[in-house]
């Protein structure tokens, strides 16, 4: 029954992707397609005084220029613009009014017969502003923040436990440090794009780059006041998103608005520069204060954070809670404050909050280990917690200890000389660092439809998306095993708002949720087949209970006696049906008694040229405990991708804002650095066994996020070990080693 689950399986959509057969949102063509280009604001705050589109309109091939003054009607209440993952506040409304909230905000949309004409005409639109004073520097707003009430909302800081102040005062060894992570931006390969096909009956087929087609569909219907049956949103392939596609982005509104205005099909593809207002990892100033007994017992954690949000929404993701979760510690206190800046609202970005917060915690733990004269891995083992102390409950499974053990063994950690600057290779100082990682193992309500046909083919459909992580493949693996079919006999349909219900694909929750949905729905198919099989004359399964049969190689077989079996084709033919279809909604009935998390131990080796400060990350080992691994091949790719992103976070990524102009200045992938091949050397991924009997029927957790968590800290700690220099603000560029 499990031929595919747990087996390294190549992507079922791999061929379509490498041959170009897989189409992305900006690649759909239709007769009469109009092309749109966005004009964006050059100021960060103020009002539009005047828009002169005459020059643009005079260009041959320009159809129209939409602005807040002449656009079709849009909803006027915030609720319409709120989506499934929106933070508290008043969501941004593109082309809604004359107010400028951030530099790069769309202020006009040029529509033309050709994309080149649209883009040229967009450069001719003149916009005059009444400018107001703006602020885009988190450091300048540090004292003008507002605090989130502990325990007040699920994304706010947790309530404190114990007595932090006395514990800090009494601590035998204390480490307090401030850590900074700058604003970082998503740079998915696929640009944000929408193609709206205007059908003859006025219905809209919207191809959008998104992580949630149904979220976008509902949003569009509310914002543009359209009946739900008029709009279908599709996103069969997504070229990377990792959080930037959770919320409906402005291009889908503008493209749809334009299609309604023109009553024709419209495509809008954003430029790389324009994508830099679609959300970002919020900059984070953190102060971590740790107190311990000299033997290495962690007594107290105080974690304070200031993060960036926009003027109109309060984006935050329980940033500080990870500190009190990861280690055994009787006293913990959290503070989280938001700084409002004249920027667009931040968004989720791979392991939102954990990537940044665990970076600070794990650097602080490394510094505490130095203060305690303890091996940093030993300190973590001493502080290991079998309970989620934030909610005071055990884990359904947690095998972080094996991550430490297997990772350390593979890395050769026991050969580490604890003294900084003690290990070298010629002109290079060698540093070894470690860090822990943690993420949630969430599950969400989801619906799956399976249609099994008499020829032994199954079609599985669900409105989830595959953002490149391998969702198509793991869905095919699970259904093939559940229905006893070869992988080639399975078709997966996703990324279509008309398919059975799915939430946005994010938070690492889809693999577990959709797999569980498939198991449940396949079970219903099997039961129906058994019911039909029992109706056959002299049925060998006449006495079999539903739990006593399995689908194997196209036959329904008794699990007690393999000789008692009927081919499914014969069963269906006898009953006069050519297909069996079932659709089931599933939800994880969480009684709250157990915490569900994934964990990792990251080990990094860096080599730093002593004279020049050039840093090379020569080795990373990530040992991951994430339940049962559905597909070791795609899972490994996920973790490798997370490690690469972590290398970027540690050494390269930083959004540069000119605070005078309130404008992002490195909004392109030449100047916004992410790791290139030369920056990525040996990465080893270890999946430790972590059976979990209660989390779901297959024991699956997700692992989209866990790969990045802890990586930046492990590298920063390795750099300290190599050089003796502790750099507490990311990215660690070579000049910071000499400050």
């Amino acid at each position: 029954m499990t031929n595919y689950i747990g087996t390294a399986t190549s992507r079922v959509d791999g061929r379509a992707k490498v041959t170009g057969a897989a189409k992305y949102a900006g690649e759909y063509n239709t007769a009469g397609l109009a092309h749109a280009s966005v004009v964006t604001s050059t100021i960060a705050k103020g009002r539009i005084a005047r828009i002169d589109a005459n020059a643009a309109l005079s260009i041959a091939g320009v159809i129209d220029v939409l602005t807040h003054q002449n656009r079709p009607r849009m909803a006027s209440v915030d609720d319409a613009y709120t989506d499934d993952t929106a933070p508290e506040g008043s969501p941004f409304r593109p082309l809604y009014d004359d107010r400028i909230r951030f530099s790069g905000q769309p202020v006009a949309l040029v529509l033309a017969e050709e994309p080149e004409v649209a883009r040229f005409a967009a450069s001719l639109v003149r916009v005059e502003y009444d400018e107001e004073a703006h602020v885009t520097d988190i450091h300048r707003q540090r004292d003008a923040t507002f605090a989130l009430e502990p325990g007040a909302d699920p994304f706010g800081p947790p309530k404190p436990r114990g007595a932090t102040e006395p514990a800090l005062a009494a601590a035998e060894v204390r480490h307090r440090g401030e850590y900074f992570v700058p604003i970082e931006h998503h740079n998915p390969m696929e640009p944000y794009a929408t193609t709206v096909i205007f059908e003859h009956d006025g219905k809209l087929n919207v191809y959008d780059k998104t992580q949630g087609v149904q979220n976008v569909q509902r949003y569009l219907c509310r914002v543009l006041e359209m009946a739900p049956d008029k709009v279908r949103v599709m996103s069969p392939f997504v070229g990377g998103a990792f959080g930037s596609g959770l919320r409906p982005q402005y291009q889908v509104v503008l493209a749809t608005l334009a299609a309604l205005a023109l009553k024709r099909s419209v495509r809008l593809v954003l430029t790389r520069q324009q994508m830099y207002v679609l959300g970002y990892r919020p900059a984070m100033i953190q102060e971590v204060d740790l107190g311990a007994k000299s033997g290495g017992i962690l007594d107290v954690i105080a974690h304070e954070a200031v993060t960036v949000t926009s003027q109109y929404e309060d984006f935050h993701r329980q940033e500080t809670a990870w500190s009190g979760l990861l280690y055994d510690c009787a006293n913990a206190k959290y503070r989280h404050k938001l700084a409002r800046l004249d920027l667009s609202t931040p968004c989720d970005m791979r392991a939102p909050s954990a990537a940044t917060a665990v970076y600070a915690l794990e650097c602080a733990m490394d510094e505490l280990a130095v203060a305690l004269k303890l091996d940093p891995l030993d300190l973590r083992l001493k502080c290991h917690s079998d309970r989620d102390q934030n909610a005071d409950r055990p884990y359904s499974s947690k095998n972080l200890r094996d991550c430490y053990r297997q990772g350390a063994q593979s890395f050769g950690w026991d050969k580490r000389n604890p003294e900084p600057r003690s290990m070298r290779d010629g002109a290079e100082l060698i540093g070894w660092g470690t860090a822990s990682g943690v993420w949630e193992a969430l599950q969400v309500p989801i619906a799956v439809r399976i249609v099994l046909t008499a020829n032994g083919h199954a079609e599985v459909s669900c409105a989830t998306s595959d953002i490149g992580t391998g969702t198509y493949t793991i869905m095919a693996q699970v259904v093939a095993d559940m229905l006893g079919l070869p992988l080639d006999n399975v078709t997966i349909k996703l990324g279509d708002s008309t398919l059975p219900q799915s939430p946005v694909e994010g938070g690492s929750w889809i693999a577990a949720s959709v797999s569980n949905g498939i198991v449940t729905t396949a079970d219903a198919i099997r039961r129906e087949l058994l019911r039909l099989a029992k109706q056959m004359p002299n049925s060998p399964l006449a006495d079999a209970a539903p739990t006593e049969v399995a689908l194997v190689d196209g036959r329904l077989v008794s699990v007690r006696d393999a000789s008692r079996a009927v081919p499914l084709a014969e069963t269906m033919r006898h009953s006069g049906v050519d297909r069996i279809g079932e659709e089931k909604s599933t939800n994880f009935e969480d009684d709250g008694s157990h915490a569900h998390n994934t964990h990792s131990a990251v080990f990094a080796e860096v080599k730093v040229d002593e004279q020049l400060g050039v840093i090379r990350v020569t080795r990373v080992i990530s040992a991951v405990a994430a339940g049962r691994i559905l597909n070791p091949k795609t899972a490994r790719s996920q973790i490798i991708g997370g490690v690469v992103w972590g290398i970027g976070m540690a050494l390269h990524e930083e959004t540069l804002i000119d605070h005078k102009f309130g404008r992002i200045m490195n909004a392109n992938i030449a100047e916004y650095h992410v790791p290139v091949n030369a920056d990525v050397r040996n990465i080893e991924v270890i999946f430790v066994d972590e059976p979990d009997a209660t989390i779901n029927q297959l024991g699956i957790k997700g692992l989209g996020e866990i790969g990045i968590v802890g990586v930046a800290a492990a590298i920063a700690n390795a750099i300290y070990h190599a050089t003796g220099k502790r750099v507490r603000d990311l990215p660690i560029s070579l000049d910071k080693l000499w400050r």
Partner: protein
Amino acid sequence: MNPFHYTRASDVADAVRQIAADPSARFIAGGTNLIDLMKEDVERPSRLIDISRLPLKSVEETAVGGLRIGALVPNSDLAYHPLVAERYPMLASAILAGASAQLRNMASTGGNLLQRTRCYYFYDVATPCNKRAPGSGCSAIDGLNRMHAILGTSEACIATHPSDMCVALAALDATVHVAGPAAARAIAFTDFHRLPEDAPQRDTNLQPDEIVTAIELPPRGFAANYTYLKIRDRLSYAFALVSVAAALELEGGTIKDARLALGGVAHKPWRDPMAEAALRGQPAGEVAFSRAADLMLGDAKGFAHNAFKIDLARRAVLRALAQAAAGTPQSQSDKQIR
């Protein structure tokens, strides 16, 4: 990007005629920089004159034993040309330190000289920039200037020239051959690029109606003791924070002749005759290297974010000279610094 006319030049004279007739026209060869600038509306040429088919693609030995490199030789071809690899390995190394394989395949030799700065403000038409819009002001002086110049800056501009290849060409005492309406002329490489002074809109001393036809290398290639050392924010595909082309001629342990050029620090590849003179006749070692670095960086001036470059350049000069003296040039594929 604006609409433009597209024409082809039939020969060099035709190219010169066409550009002289239309001051807002631009030559296009590989287009690796010009197309980007057009997309950003930094360049809005009325006409692109395609010179990519002109017969300027050969690498030939000169009568005196040097090399004459056609302006349209792709960067990749030049880096891997057997005569370049053998006699001018510092040039090959510098080329391979720049851009990516795809860009090097497209980019031409002449175009490499004429690439524009990567200053953020130059690229963003929403901000003032004296180089792009003379008289509008320099946003970098009080803005984001971590990548900017520390030598030869002016009140008007602190941009750097981004090329790696040009740093090696400057060190090698190359000559730029240009054609124009008048007689063809030759420009010493170190005179080809300008300092910004009060006219940063002019990157070079090439006249608007002139075209680069060839680069000539003198016979001496310093193939035994050289290096090209590039320090950047990631290990490949990034512009230099600081780069050093260093070449030595040694006799025993004594420096007979020396060439030293810096990239990433000025509006042009930076050479300093005093520093080179200070190396001549000295034992190849820390004392002489340090003196040369001091002389080279004595007038360096940092801004809010780039003052570290002064120290970095000093360290890089010391290391590069050590690499050159030891005959262990920096590999551009193995990223460990030698």
